[in-house]
């Protein structure tokens, strides 16, 4: 036997591009990461609504009828489910990124908060209200500005009939309404 000669020939297993379908844990991870695209869709929609509202009533009506299309309603129902799922996936992960040492020996906020999602939600709500409250205390006019597109929608819905929108006179009224709101 030749002791000098090595028979080493390490075998490297090929990586299959469908590896994430082989295990429930990996599939759930891909779903978590994948749903972020629908979160993006929601953000873009909100941005579109905001821009449409600021450009005027006509744009807003166009945007509203676009969203009213059955395909968009079905898509938005899917987006809602995806956004809720995406948000929920971070609850079990959050305590891993936050470490609190309690009384020298009990370590890990994870143990304290594991599975207690209601407590986490409560803390999140408390934080949101506190931060929001502080901001609005110093900049109360911010609320009006942020809500102005919503107020505009309400005014148009209450005062106008969508079928009459292309009419020139009505458009003038609505434009004034829009300018009032932007001016506020």
């Amino acid at each position, binding site marked *: 036997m030749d002791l000098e000669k090595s*028979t*080493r*020939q*390490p*075998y*490297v*297993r090929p*990586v299959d591009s469908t*590896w*994430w379908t*082989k*295990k429930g*844990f*990996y599939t759930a*991870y891909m779903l978590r*990461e994948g749903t972020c695209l629908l979160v993006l869709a929601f953000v873009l929609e909100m941005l579109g609504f905001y821009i449409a509202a600021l450009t005027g009533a006509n744009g807003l009506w166009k945007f509203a009828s676009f969203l009213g299309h059955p395909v968009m309603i079905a898509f938005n129902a899917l987006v809602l489910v995806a956004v809720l799922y995406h948000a929920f996936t971070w609850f079990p*992960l959050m305590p*891993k*990124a936050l*470490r609190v*040492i309690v009384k*020298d*020996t009990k*370590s*890990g906020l*994870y143990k304290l908060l594991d599975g207690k999602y209601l407590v986490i939600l409560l803390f999140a709500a408390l934080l949101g209200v506190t931060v929001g409250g502080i901001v609005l205390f110093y900049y109360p006019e911010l609320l009006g500005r942020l809500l102005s597109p919503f107020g505009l929608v309400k005014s148009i819905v209450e005062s106008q009939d969508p079928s009459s929108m292309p009419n020139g006179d009505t458009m003038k009224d609505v434009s004034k309404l829009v300018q009032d709101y932007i001016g506020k």
Partner: protein
Amino acid sequence: MADKIKITVQRYRPEQDREPWDQSFEVEYTRETSLLEALNSIKDTQEPTLSFRWSCRMAICGSCGMMVNGVPKLACKTFLRDYAGQEMRIEPLANFPVERDLVVDLSDFIEKLERIKPYIIPKKGESQPGEQREYIQTPAQLEKYRQFSMCINCGICYAACPQYKLNKEFLGPAALTLIYRYNEDSRDGGKEERMKLVNQDTGVWSCSFVGYCSECCPKGVDPASAIQLGKVESAKDYLISMFKKKGE
């Protein structure tokens, strides 16, 4: 009376085989039989050429990591009773090159462990070379890293990690966990050196928080947690460096 279970083992003999192949065995087991004992009984009574690593039989040495029905586990900590009524499929630890049968080449992992300087580096000016003295630590200071020091270097977290599967340059769960463990040690002064490895592309930011490493870790180390905490440290490090003068 002992029950029987079918165990299929992936075989690979580099001098004869071009690719791995499967071999099945019938094994008798009792409530206490571990997978490691079953493999040893196969080697003793059925297939003497079957190769696998093992040493302590009690989840301390970290030698017997292998894939059990697709999940990375320590053979000594896996009991056949939990697979009653099923078949077991044993493969070598995923994401590492197969040397022979269930033996994998862990040298990439070992090299990464060495690279992160997994030992206490004295703080500058705190002690003289060769000097021996006590370094006092409070229970609270110990608690900061204790959980992350439980790692037995079995490589199971690397087999669980899809990021390591796709990119072998990634430092990986155990190495990044040990970095955090030493950086958080009140006696250590090597954080600055190790943060360079943490901040790199191949450091914490290559982790996309799949979290399966923590799911599989046989010692409850929770590497995913250490890496996320490492991301916090890396972000802080980046912020601080922006305010530091260049060359400092």
